[in-house]
């Protein structure tokens, strides 16, 4: 339609999942031919936004216009895409066990007269298309054998091909939007720059409008002309990249606007309501008779290249970093479910020789994994069963389980943690996320472990439950145990942690203690372009 209308315009986009509103009245415009960044913290609504555009979710209400034309949802889908909008998802959407040509041409195979596919021709098209983006691979190779960078580029090339197919009928050759959802998250750092160059070229040469969702401020800085920051399902603002400073951008990415952040730095306020940081008296007392409960030296494995850290009794220590920085592997390397390549782990004075979760448990440590659906909770099982999982010995006399004593103990723990309804027989999946998490933390408490490792204790739960969990963990640590919290909830860590260890690129880039532990300081360590600390 009119040449001045924006490439993409959404108005009052509303998306609710049950009682929770993921997008509330999001309005946003993206200009023709620009590279536009979308930033925001977890839960800001940016993933929901992409999922609506890609057709995974249908919004409850709201309008979408592409190049001035009103569009009905779902907007993008590969097979019957009629709108010039293509999405490259974070997981790239390729089938690893099939060949490049299969993945690239699926749904677009040209049929010869006999109704068969001409493979030679398909391979030729694939090869040409990929070479245009600088990907030099054999179309017959399996996708899983290729480098991560090539895989992402194949996915981008496929999206461009889709866009071209849709555009053939359009009058305007440059009317196309490419959406990249965290495209560099799986790329080794050395290949990111050339990938960004390719995207720039696509934008320049073809005039394709590019929307990039990213966690990485450097990417947004170097690539986008403008970016929009989301928070709590709304637009915080749209900014010209050139006019925003690096710390300001980092703050926006963390879901703060600069005003808020500046204020907090000025007043030195840590966290918001429900802060349960220890008083200085507690700290000094704990320091006097503290015992080393965990010592990690030269840890190597997963994304971690080298890490040393120590935990003392009575402490709550946070482990954090950007996604992909290696911090997220720490709990699983510790408990041994993920093999470590090197280094030593000493739990309460005993070297963890054969690393596996059973051994870890036997040393008086307990791990609460991060995924309530898959790794920490058994959704279909009752709260009673979940709480005593792996810890049935106290309820077992001469090999026979005593259901009553088990139920009593669990019920008491539910009361203590204020889990409502206080019914031990109710399946876990009938509780809200916060109640579920409290129940699973109850599992750690029942064991009275010396060392508690919790992966993302407070993702997806309400503030009330979070504060309760913090209080509970603080109680446990004052009792002499130590708690290791592995989390990327940067605003949460200062509320609860005595110390925070920050990872970047598989190494520890800094440690904050006491009053230094602020969200701002954590973010600075997460995002600083500092060279990796040499060892």
């Amino acid at each position, binding site marked *: 339609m009119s040449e001045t209308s924006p490439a993409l315009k959404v108005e009052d986009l509303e998306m609710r999942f*049950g009682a929770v509103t*993921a997008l509330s009245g999001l*309005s946003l*415009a993206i200009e023709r031919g620009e590279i536009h960044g979308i930033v925001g913290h977890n839960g800001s609504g940016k993933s929901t936004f992409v999922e609506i555009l890609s057709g995974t979710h249908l919004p409850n209400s709201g309008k979408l216009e592409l190049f001035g034309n009103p569009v009905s949802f779902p907007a993008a889908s590969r097979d019957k895409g009629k709108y010039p909008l293509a999405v490259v998802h974070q997981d790239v959407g390729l089938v690893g066990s099939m060949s490049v040509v299969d993945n690239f041409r699926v749904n677009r195979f040209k049929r010869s007269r006999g109704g068969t596919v001409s493979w030679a021709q398909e391979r030729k098209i694939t090869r040409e298309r990929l070479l245009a983006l600088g990907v030099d691979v054999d179309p017959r190779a399996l996708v899983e054998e290729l480098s991560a960078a090539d895989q992402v580029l194949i996915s981008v090339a496929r999206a461009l091909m889709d866009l071209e197919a849709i555009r053939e009928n359009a009058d305007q050759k440059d009317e196309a939007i490419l959406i990249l959802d965290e495209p560099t998250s799986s790329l080794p750092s050395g290949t990111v720059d050339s990938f960004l160059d390719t995207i720039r070229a696509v934008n320049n040469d073809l005039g394709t409008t590019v929307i990039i969702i990213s966690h990485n401020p450097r990417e947004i800085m170097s690539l986008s002309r403008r970016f929009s920051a989301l928070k709590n399902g709304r637009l915080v603002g749209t900014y010209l990249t050139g006019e925003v400073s690096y710390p300001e951008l980092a703050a926006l990415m963390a879901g703060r606007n600069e005003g808020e952040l500046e204020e907090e730095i000025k007043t030195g306020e840590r966290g918001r309501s429900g802060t349960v940081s220890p008083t200085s008296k507690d700290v000094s007392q704990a320091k006097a008779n503290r015992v080393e409960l965990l010592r990690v030296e030269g840890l190597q494995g997963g994304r971690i290249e080298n890490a040393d850290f120590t935990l003392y009794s009575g402490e709550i220590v946070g482990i954090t970093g950007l996604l992909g920085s290696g911090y997220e592997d720490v709990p699983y390397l510790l408990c041994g479910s993920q093999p470590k390549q090197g280094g030593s782990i000493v739990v309460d004075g005993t070297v963890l020789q054969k690393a596996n*979760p059973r051994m870890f448990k036997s040393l008086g440590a307990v791990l609460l994994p991060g995924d309530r659906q*898959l*790794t*920490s909770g058994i*959704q279909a099982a009752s709260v009673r069963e979940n709480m005593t999982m792996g810890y049935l010995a106290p309820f077992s006399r001469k090999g026979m389980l005593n259901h009553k004593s088990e139920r009593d103990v669990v019920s008491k723990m539910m009361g203590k943690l204020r889990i409502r309804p206080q019914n031990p027989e109710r399946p876990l999946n009938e509780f809200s996320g*916060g109640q579920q998490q409290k129940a699973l933390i109850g599992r750690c408490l029942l064991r009275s472990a010396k060392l508690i490792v919790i992966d993302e204790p407070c993702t997806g739960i309400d503030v009330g439950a979070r504060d309760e969990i913090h209080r509970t963990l603080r109680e446990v640590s004052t009792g002499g145990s130590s708690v290791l919290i592995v989390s990327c909830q940067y605003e949460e860590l200062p509320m609860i942690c005595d110390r925070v260890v920050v990872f970047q690129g598989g190494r520890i880039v800094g440690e904050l203690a006491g009053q230094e532990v602020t969200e701002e300081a954590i973010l600075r360590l997460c995002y600083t372009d500092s060279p990796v600390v040499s060892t």
Partner: protein
Amino acid sequence: MNASVENASPAIGDSLMTGEAGKSEVIASKSNKAGGDTGSSASRTFLRRYFVVLLLPALLILFSILAPSTFLTAYNFQTILTTNAVLIILAIGETAVLVTGEFDFSFGGTLGLSAAIVVMLITDNHGMSSFVAIGISFLAALLVGALNAYFVVKLKVKSFIVTLGMGTLTTGIGLGLTGSQTVSNPSQFLKNAMTKHVLGVGLPFYYGLIIVIVVWFVLEYVKTGRNMYFVGEGRKAAFLAGIHVNRIRVGVFLLSAITSWLAGMVMLGQTTAVDATYGGPYLLPVFAAVFLGFTTIRSGRFNALGTLVGVLVLAVGSTGLEILSVASWITQVFDGGVLIVAVGLANVLGGERIDSWM
């Protein structure tokens, strides 16, 4: 601040929100609704949970009315229990396997192989004593179970495929050992052990009953039983909680091999003629019974008593239909139909959970 704010939205709520929170809230609101209306829903829950159990008296009454002189006799009930001992034993072994989220399709083959080994060792010039022959067949069955476990646990092949292959393989070996002949039981000991009656019901039924009780007790009252459910419902969570996941998986394949072997001995002792393929036709009724059991008593979980009820429903149904002398093909229609209905029912009752099994 020097950034140009082109479009700012002032109202920023304080609440934390993520996709996951959304999910859990939905679940919570759903459960609240379920908890809201009590009265009628409680009776509906009861009906759903005991539907299959209630089906049993319903079928009994139905057939008793339709065929009072032939169906409603003590002899008939004694026969039903006696002749379904093999099914009970096989189904209870399979129940344990399904609890842990695995499949065992090889029980028919193991049954046939075990029987064939006993026959071969006693006759065919080997002239071994019954006890030695039975002992060797027991070890052979254990070997089959161990091989299943090796492929599934160690080599990480899907149990579905491994046991399907193993079932055919062992059936073939069994046929080879008996020269593809139908053979009769050469062991007087087996004959005595399998054909004696107590209260008019053959001993094998009681063997089955004992195993059902043992498995029920383990699943309900022993640590290992609880852990078996965890392995089935959330293997990764179970592993991270320090449960011996692989030991349990190996264990159920061995258990299933043992129940298959016992079923082979029962069949050899009970019937006059056997060949190695006789276990094959049990594949369907076993799964039908176990899935019927899944829907009842411990609704949404494979459970021992449910399996027993499932077997009885199948047994009463097919016997009743035979007595009404509907043509013999009706048994297959009944067994197949029940399996489909049972799995469908299981899916409705178990919600999303059943996905992980199928």
